[in-house]
């Protein structure tokens, strides 16, 4: 059984950014969404989706860091050693999901740490778009919603 991580359903996500607020509020007691570790991406006109670290097995962010400031823990979370991070941003470029942010207040990168297994973004999303799930748990949901949408399109065609 693989590890749980933050996964967002693009069918339910409306791009409200409440998850961004919940994250930055919890981590740095701030209203600034730039300090959030989960970020909303808008694809007009189709919709939106929130992205956070997906816990890559062979994390490219870790390999790319020139100061070795990133470390993958037992749990799979990418930990940032603040003293070693110089804000160069190579990890941001290396991440294929755009899941790393540069915290403007400290000029150090911040990455989702799953809030000690009690992720706030999941709690606060008003549309229940974000789940804390394993890949196995998430896949059937996506499969169902993709099929649902396909069927809907087939039905509504004249």
């Amino acid at each position: 059984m693989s590890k749980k991580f933050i996964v967002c359903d693009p069918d339910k996500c409306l791009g409200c950014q409440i998850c961004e607020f919940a994250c930055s509020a919890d981590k740095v007691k701030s209203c600034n969404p730039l300090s959030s570790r989960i970020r909303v991406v808008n694809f007009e006109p189709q919709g939106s989706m929130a992205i956070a670290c997906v816990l890559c097995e062979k994390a490219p962010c870790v390999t790319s860091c020139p100061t070795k400031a990133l470390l993958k823990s037992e749990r799979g979370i990418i930990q940032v050693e603040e003293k070693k991070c110089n804000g160069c941003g190579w990890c941001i470029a290396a991440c294929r999901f755009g899941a790393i942010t540069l915290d403007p207040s400290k000029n150090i990168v911040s990455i989702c740490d799953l809030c000690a297994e009690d992720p706030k973004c999941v709690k606060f999303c008003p549309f229940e778009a974000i789940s804390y799930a394993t890949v196995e748990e998430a896949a059937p949901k996506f499969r169902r919603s993709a099929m649902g949408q396909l069927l809907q399109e087939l039905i509504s065609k004249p």
Partner: protein
Amino acid sequence: MFGYMGKILRVNLTDGKVSKEWLDESIARKFIGGRGLGAKILFDEVKPGVDPLRPENKLVIATGVVTGIPFPGNSCHSVMAKSPLTGIWGEAHAKGFFGPELKSAGFDAIIIEGKADAPVYLWINDEKAEIRNASHLWGKLTREAQNIIKMEVKDERAQVGCIGPAGENLVRFANVLFDYNHVAGRTGMGAVMGSKKLKAIAVRGTSRVRYAHEEKLVDLLLAKFTDKEALKGPYWPDGLYKFGSLADLSYWQTTGRLPTMNFKKCLFPAYEAVSAETLAESGYVIRHNTCPYCNVACNRATKINPPYEVDPEYATPEYESAAALSSFCMNSNLASVLKAIELCNKYGMDTISTGVVIAFMMECYEKGLTTKEDTEGLDLTWGNHESLVQLVEKIARRQGIGSLLAEGVKRAAEKIGRGAEEFAMHVKGLELPMHEFRGMKGHALAAATSNRGGCHLQVETDDLFEGQLCPEIGIDETTIPKNYRDRLYSGPEKVKLNKIVGDLFALFDSFVVCKWTVYPCGGTKITTLNEIVAAATGWDVTINELMKTGERIFNLCRAFNVREGITRKDDTLPKRFTEPLPEGPYKGETLSSGTLTEMLNYYYEFREWDKGTGVPTKKKLEELELGYVAKELESLGMLPTT
């Protein structure tokens, strides 16, 4: 200063000069932002008697203290000017991303003056403002223009507000469209932009607002988001998400007050065909939309295939729009309603005014005051949806009969004459919204006295406040309506509620906050708003002070109108409301001129205005720290002598 950016951008389109001014903290505290700030600027800078479509008129776009703070309903801004439709106070609000982005760009408000020689658009990027050529955009539909501008400024995240061809053609009720389907709809603000040859305003910014007590603010907001039930609010716990504001249509029908056939009737037999429930099952809704940090998600995008092909970028069926173009015109074809709304948004025209003007024309056609000769062959029988859709486009383009209707229902009726003024449904020139006043007397007073004219948003009472106490602001057991019969009550307690709500909503429209999310509709209480403002600004502000501020703003807008010649004689309603309702649970109800007179007498008493003229007294204005306003009215001979 905390909570505000502290700067206003002034743009003069005549000489191309762009300048920054400081927003004084004392002004911010006295006028809050949004409507308040706009009223202050416009009262001070736009002299009475100015033609709203001339360069001397000014356009103000203002955010407020809560804009950008992450909680539901924060992301609003106001667009204000002297209205080309009514000649008095013009104001419209839009939600979405533009307001917060404007603040991030470094400004609390923008003032636009003068007129450009050729079409231009304004590009504001992190405090740098540039007037750019827009000749290639003139004539483009709203979203087209927005998308091109986003490419030109090379920033997908730029927020754009623009007018469509209707604004360019100076349709008097043209509107301004902001990002996705957020419209500053009423009173013709789009025509003001059109008259200045200003096609659009684009903003992008990366600054942050500084808050006085950010940690306290964060705690307040976290507490708010944690209580998911309270977030929904009492009025429609799930309705707004499930059905959008269109849910109102079934409500008004089942309570016998759905404006139908130009207010001749109050029940629409075919209402189910255009109801929110039908829309939900139709398969037309493809997506919900929401504003930043809002859990309500009242907005939805629709898509329909031919014959009424609707582009989902444009068609969002809100109640007012849908009713004005369906029951009000006896139209039961849902697809045509969505198509008409889509066209209004594409061309940039207020849907309510459009619907009212079309219904007026249908009544003229019924009575033989206009014929197919006048309408270029269009058959304007009640409910003819093909004609309705064609007429929308004609109005936007000012083609044929459309050119007359583009002047608004008041002017169109004056032109047609022969008794047409009797069924031109407006107050002070603003077409009436979809509320049947004979079944809700508090709203009747509101429409007669509202600062924008025939408006439903600036004061509400009756159904909305049933059972919703708020003793902190004087709404207690004696003032709130308790049941459906109270909607017909027109006595002093109802008028008192009207006065309190007028001040409260003036405050909301200055914060600027979305009314779906706050008392009485939504879950945010007045006490919470007070705490949020205090934490954001560091002011030791109380609810009493905020309500006084609301009263000040309401009086300032009234003074603006008084200066343009408005007095008690203009606080009226169309004659049709003195006729009895023909059917339904409120059959036989009327709003007699005697009742309105009584209500007005109480109203002026509560507001401490002169009873004879409806003008704020010197004493009241001085009490509200508007002494200079009193002086000016006095010098113009407009102040009552008592």
